[in-house]
């Protein structure tokens, strides 16, 4: 096939509000996929990576959020990318493979030769071009991005065993209880269009099973007991697992960073990874300053052009400051994300925290956490429009929108 005919479509699964409850209180007014990491919406990092792909014809965001939530973002990023970026709304969740299959006609509109499938909640450097090249060389139906992690971490994800010579996927298990492998599925795939036939076959088999479900046997009862409806098809368990060992699935291993953004606190860790990557890919996005004409900057810091930071403030490492933020004299920010329209007053300190849109932190206030990304209260999160009064200390806490904190607190969730 002539490489000019090899059109590529990228599909990003963005899920919907029910999955978004894990991102509360930040997801109350912004869908999780649009939450900013290193100053850009979560999925923007995926979409920016797509620029590298030659012959990219379309990008689809598939999810079950309301269309309005993505309308603005899609039109602005289409402009920037010069490639149509469209949001396709499912009426209900169909599972990762089910969603892909549900929109197969739209996806195949321009007869792409390859289809990327990306999960919105992964943070990595997206080696899409390298994956595509490897995939073409392997000649299978799909190639998964994989990474080696520690054995204990591996059990939280899909573990796979790959043939060291051919890179073929020999075995795949989702969240196993015993150790299978320390190679995990990163949630980034490239497929050839015959993946749709594979999914179709699974649907067909289910139809058959459902038909025979009237017979009282154990297996059909098991299927009925499972709370997933028959049209919910998961890519990993239902499609890829059966394909292992059949010379259809291959792996591309990345040695760069990879994280899954499972909680609001993780967004600080992932922000740091992306900010550090900016140093090599887009250094102009990072702030700098030495305290003379502009604030002292330590490490990787992003400051939106409309934000105002007083020169006596010290910012970083790992700080992202969004639009219209005002940082007063003597403020110290470290390992935090400050969202739009926040005002932080004189001499306040913010460490290991996310400060929600339109919030206000008083003079000498202190918002901090121990920085443990794995615990519920390890990163302090202030929702939208939270006011922390002068000299108040908030440690390891989560505060829902529209609250005024006039007393110090530790380890609390404030509704």
């Amino acid at each position, binding site marked *: 096939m002539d490489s000019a005919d090899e059109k590529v479509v990228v599909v990003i699964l963005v899920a919907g509000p029910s999955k978004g*409850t894990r991102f*509360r209180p930040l997801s109350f007014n912004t869908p999780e996929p649009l939450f900013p990491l290193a100053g850009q919406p979560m999925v923007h990092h995926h979409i920016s990576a797509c620029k590298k792909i030659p012959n990219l014809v379309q990008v689809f965001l598939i999810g079950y959020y309301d269309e309005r939530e993505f309308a603005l973002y899609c039109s602005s990023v289409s402009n920037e990318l010069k490639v149509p970026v469209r949001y396709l709304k499912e009426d209900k969740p169909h599972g990762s493979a089910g969603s892909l299959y549900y929109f197969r006609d739209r996806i195949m509109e321009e007869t792409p030769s390859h289809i990327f499938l990306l999960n919105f909640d992964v943070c990595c450097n997206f080696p899409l071009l390298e994956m595509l090249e490897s995939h073409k060389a392997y000649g299978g139906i799909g190639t998964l991005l994989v990474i080696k992690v520690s054995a204990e971490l591996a059990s939280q994800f899909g573990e796979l065993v790959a043939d060291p010579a051919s890179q073929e996927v020999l075995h795949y298990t989702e969240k196993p209880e015993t150790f299978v492998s320390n190679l995990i599925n990163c949630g980034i795939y490239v497929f050839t269009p015959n993946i749709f036939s594979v999914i179709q076959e699974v649907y067909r088999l289910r139809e058959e099973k459902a038909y025979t479900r009237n017979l009282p046997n154990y297996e059909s009862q098991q299927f009925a007991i499972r709370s997933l409806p028959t049209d919910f098809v998961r890519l990993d368990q239902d499609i890829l697992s059966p394909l292992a060992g059949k010379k259809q699935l291959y792996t591309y291993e990345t040695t760069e960073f990879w994280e899954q953004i499972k909680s609001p606190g993780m967004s600080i860790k992932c922000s740091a990874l992306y900010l550090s990557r900016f140093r090599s890919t887009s250094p102009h996005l990072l702030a700098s300053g030495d305290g003379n004409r502009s604030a002292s900057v330590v490490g990787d810091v992003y400051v939106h052009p409309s934000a105002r930071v007083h020169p006596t403030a010290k910012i970083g490492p790992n700080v992202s400051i969004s639009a219209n933020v005002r940082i007063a004299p003597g403020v110290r920010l470290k390992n935090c994300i400050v969202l739009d329209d926040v005002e932080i007053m004189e001499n306040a300190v913010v460490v290991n925290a996310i400060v929600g849109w339109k919030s206000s932190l008083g003079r000498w206030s202190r918002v901090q956490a121990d920085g443990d990304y794995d615990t519920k209260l390890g990163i302090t999160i202030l929702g939208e429009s939270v006011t922390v009064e002068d000299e108040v200390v908030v440690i390891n806490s989560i505060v*829902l929108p*529209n*609250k005024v904190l006039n007393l110090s607190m530790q380890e609390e969730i404030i*509704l």
Partner: protein
Amino acid sequence: MKALILVGGFGTRLRPLTLSVPKPLVDFANKPMILHQIEALKAIGVTEVVLAINYQPEVMLNFLKDFEAKLEIKITCSQETEPLGTAGPLALARDKLIDKSGEPFFVLNSDVISEYPLREMIEFHKSHGGEASIMVTKVDEPSKYGVVVTEESTGKVERFVEKPKLFVGNKINAGIYLLNPSVLDRIQLRPTSIEKEVFPEIAAEGKLYAMVLPGFWMDIGQPRDYITGLRLYLDSLRKKASPKLAAGTHIIGNVLVDETAKIGEGCLIGPDVAIGPGCVVEPGVRLSRCTVMRGVRIKKHACISSSIIGWHSTVGQWARVENMTILGEDVHVCDEIYSNGGVVLPHKEIKSSILKPEIVM
């Protein structure tokens, strides 16, 4: 006659319920909180009610159109663009409250539930001839509130004491006022407190009088008081021998059941329970001291006490839910789960037990 209901802000103390609807629309005894007040005002001839709000006016306005039609009373909103405190909103709504009649107008606090003896209050106001009347209620722990010190015989207010450390009296401001239009001349359009600035001024001139509220009173702005308030409210229905209270061998004490709710065999319901429209209570369920909101399904053999179950939630078979468990809208507690004081935000599924009070986001 006119009235103003101070609705105020975000209702954060009643979360997670107020994450789904604005506070005045949260159901209490099977009726939106604010409807209790609007009905009481309508009953004594108020023709127009102004709601002072600063949050989600669109959601409110939709509901209000419904009530307006059903009750034949005019309901308007006065929206604050910045929080104006407890007196500022009156200045904002000035034009709506004053008409040529010069009649006094009522001001109610939307979090309050009580007998609403408004007719008696009008009589009291006429008899003392002062500028403003307020209802006061007797409480056990006055230091939690603002105490109103009055002259025994006349009810003339001598002074207000905010959260007194020593005992000065046991009557507190019940949040129900009847004010002459001249009071509006004392209020500027800025954040102002009626208890701290306006009333003390009127009291100093000897023109403020307090009437002791007969019957029950509760500020139901937070879950614990909401549950206590339901007990007091149902108790008052019992005293009036209200036909609305349910009866039957499966009912203990005061229980309110909406006519569209279904209750199965072998249940024991009460005391102090309210079951909302469209609810399904399956056989063998025990409910006590709880509120079950619209569209909830309680499955077989479950046991719920001292809790609030939010709209369209489900409680699984053999589940036990107690000790101030508050389920937001569309929360599903799986079979056999135990919840001890779980506070669950909307659209969640509870698959493992909550052994001690915890917020589930």
